[in-house]
């Protein structure tokens, strides 16, 4: 591991941590504009996190240590995930320790812990949320893996930096398999980040909640960590999508500092466009019933399998 690689690693991790709440703020702002509402401040998520850190934590009487450990584990898993997804450059030494399958494993680790924490208090909403989260996850996780497999088959590697290196270097051509995979990935991202049409991040209507139902009992610093981890998850998914489907502008291995600096505005621009697209999707669609979610995610899964089949049959 050279010092440059290490610095690049730290820089990208720091950027992810710093920019993640901003992305959420940007999406909220876009959505407010699209829905003819007056927009909240772009920096509101940062203020929320700071406010939550200042408060006294209230923990339920019957909470076990799992409840208090879970936010840290979720946050840790999301940080590790952020460390292996190339956002600015592919100089990521940590990327050798965990590949795409491990990335999905890290997401699953976070999901299992938050679901266990939700069941820990023993309230009706907590276990309802945990059940629904695992229910969404059991279809979203294979679909995500199949999308990543398609990319791995094209590039001949499961390591994310290598995949992005290959994708960034190849000539511009339309890969039918990637088109299928892209649609599947978009659907999975919506479901995994608790977005409309599967979940509604703004809702507090009990019967429709998934993610919010699980974290009802959390407060103060625990809630702050969970909120930060959720925004980090959204950031990770966005960067993963950018890295897989729009890798132009990401500094390839050994490109040096100038490429790193040049990649930052490109990334911000791509995230801004992506965030606007997400807000548009959320404005145009309605939340579906929980039992429609399997159809939605089943479609994503089938598209992802189709992508892999197309890749094997056409070799592209």
């Amino acid at each position, binding site marked *: 591991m050279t010092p440059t690689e290490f610095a690049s690693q730290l820089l990208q991790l720091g950027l992810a941590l710093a920019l993640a709440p901003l992305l959420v703020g940007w999406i909220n702002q876009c959505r407010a504009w699209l829905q003819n509402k007056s927009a909240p401040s772009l920096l509101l998520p940062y203020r929320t996190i700071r406010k939550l850190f200042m408060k006294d934590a209230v923990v339920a009487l019957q909470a076990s240590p799992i409840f208090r450990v879970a936010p840290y584990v979720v946050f*840790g898993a999301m940080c590790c995930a952020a460390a292996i997804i190339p956002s600015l450059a592919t100089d990521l030494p940590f990327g050798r320790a965990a590949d795409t399958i491990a990335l999905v494993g890290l997401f699953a680790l976070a999901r299992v812990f938050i679901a266990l924490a939700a069941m820990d208090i023993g309230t009706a909403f907590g276990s309802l949320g945990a059940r629904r989260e695992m229910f969404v996850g059991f279809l979203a996780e294979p679909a995500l893996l199949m999308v990543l497999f398609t990319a791995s088959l094209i590039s001949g590697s499961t390591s994310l930096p290598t995949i992005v290196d290959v994708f960034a270097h190849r000539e511009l051509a339309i890969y039918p398999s990637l088109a299928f995979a892209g649609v599947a990935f978009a659907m999975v991202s919506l479901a995994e980040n608790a977005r409309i049409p599967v979940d509604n991040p703004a809702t507090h209507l009990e019967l429709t909640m998934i993610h919010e139902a699980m974290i009802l009992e959390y407060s103060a610093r625990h809630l702050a960590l969970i909120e930060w981890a959720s925004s980090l998850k959204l950031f990770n998914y966005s960067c993963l999508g950018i890295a897989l489907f729009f890798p132009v502008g990401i500094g390839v291995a050994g490109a040096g500092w100038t490429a790193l600096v040049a990649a930052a505005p490109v990334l911000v621009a791509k995230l801004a466009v992506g965030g606007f697209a997400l807000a548009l999707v959320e404005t145009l669609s309605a939340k579906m019933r929980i039992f429609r979610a399997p159809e939605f995610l089943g479609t994503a899964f089938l598209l992802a399998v189709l992508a892999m089949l197309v890749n094997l049959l056409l070799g592209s």
Partner: protein
Amino acid sequence: MSDNALGLVIAAVVAWIVIGALGLVRPRELRFVSHLLFPLGAAVGLALAVVAFFALGQLPQSTVLPLGLPDLPFHLRLDSLSAFFLLLLGAVGAAISVFAAGYFRSGEGAAPGLLCFEYHLFLAAMALVLVADDAYLFMVSWEAMALSSFFLVTTDHRIPEIRQAGFLYLLIAHVGAIAILLCFGVLQGGSGDYTFGSMRSMVLTGAWPSVAFFLALFGFGAKAGLLPMHVWLPEAHPAAPSPVSALMSGVMLKTAIYGFLRVTFDLLQGQLWWWGVIALVLGLATALFGVIFACVQSDMKRLLAYSSIENIGIIVAGIGLTILFKSYGKTLLAAITLTAVLYHALNHAFFKSLLFLATGSVLHATHERSLGKLGGLIHRMPWVAWLALVGTLAIAGLPPLNGFVSEWLLLQAFLFTPSLPQSFVNMLVPLAAGALVLAVALSAYVMVKFYGIIFLGRPRESNLAYAKDAGWFERAALSFLALGCVVLGIFPVNVIAMLDPVNAMLIGSTALHADSGNWLLLTPINADRASYSPLIVLIGIVAVVLLTAQVVHRLYHGRVRRAPPWDCGFPLQTPRMQDTAEGFGQPIREVFDAVFRIERQLPSPFDTAPKYAVKVGDHLWHWLYLPLARGADALGRLVGMIQQGRISVYLTYSFFTLLALLFFVR
């Protein structure tokens, strides 16, 4: 020591039999049996594991024992494959024996000494199965294994359901044993020599290799719980005492995997690609079936039994892929796949035994197997709960624990399937990979349900407040197994180096090679294609967690207030408002509605005492087993018609039989 490893294995078998027999001396003396004999058995198991570990890389050793029938002595052989499974048996068996030392109580079913005898006979029989080198000894020890475990399953034989479960187990074990016997009959190829050595050199022609393969798949599949012979698992595992369930699920199922590998890769020369396809499809069907059924169970041991079916399915699918690769001459990939298979077998032995033993502790503390009457045990039984958490995360396939490593390896093998000659097979591979990841993702659902409902939340019954944590023997055993899950997860390169002699023996290639990196980084093909380092992932997560905790507590404050739960401001909460096991499984039941046979009893709106009941059954039971049973009954009645009960009629039958024989023999 390594010169006479086989002698030491035989000594271990004899020691187990002697320990078992000592149990019969004073069968009712609980302290003698549980504080002396079971720990002794554990020590023997540990010694066996050490011997097997050192024998793994050694050349095969064989010997002939002058036992058995005249002119038909017992042949024994210890090679890498046997050594690997002996290691699994010894290590996991030792932990289970330690647990059993603290588990068995007097006044529960059979006398402790009798249990001790059956238990150690079971261990000895499994060890003999693994070193048998002729069909005769193999079948004798296979039957001894089936019978001793049958008696262990029916420990509480006064309960009719347990007797029924035992009968079903015995029946399927014997149907399988017949298939295995026939398989050996095919393998000896008319030479009349039933030693494995002669079977190895026998070249079968025509359809005979396929016949032998499918008899092995059926026979060993019946023992392992492959579809459609899985029905005994969810009946026998809940019926048996928990250490026995752990031993059966963790170790005995692996002897079936051993037998299947032995016949397919060692005794049969040359494998055909379509065997692999069939094993792959059957394995994946079993995996999906098992995990979907596990989602809807409400008995904790049944849930684990279905989860075992799932894991066996994954293992058999991996074997199918190995056959496929080997038949096309892709030895490196075949070695990686076989590594994944053996690794998963080892992992499953550790985490499934851990979870079964944990359910045993819960069962003793609460006398309750139904998930709907448990809850909140993490407060009452912290040792069991935290150790079971390790097993839960491992079986859910989460990094950096051991379940993830074997799944990672298997997925790598799927991903790097080169283009195979058959386009049909090429199309199958992505579908199979999809089915595999679906099964793995569902197993996380199952394990959250299992752990969350038993250990988290609030106690659903008032008597749970008196539950006591497990004793020291049980804690030691659970800690050992949990430690195994962590070590197997963190040091995959060392484990694979340990497994490689088996690959070299069965495939002719090793999974690790010159450029496969260092001990820190697992790189099955080369570093550019894939690499994984659980230790770094673990350090990464732990570092972030500790750093965040430090920063949060330094910069802000660590104040915590305890208060009643908020739950959206609803004040009248009772523990009954938590999800039940049925509730947690309900989404899966809705989605996979067609897979289940659901009998529902719904109350009408006017019921004064409404009652809701739902029973989730298995279609195969009604489509396959009941018709078969009815057919057997009808056949029995037909045969019964010639039974008149008068001696003259029987003499007439004998007369005609003699005439017929004379006619044929002439």
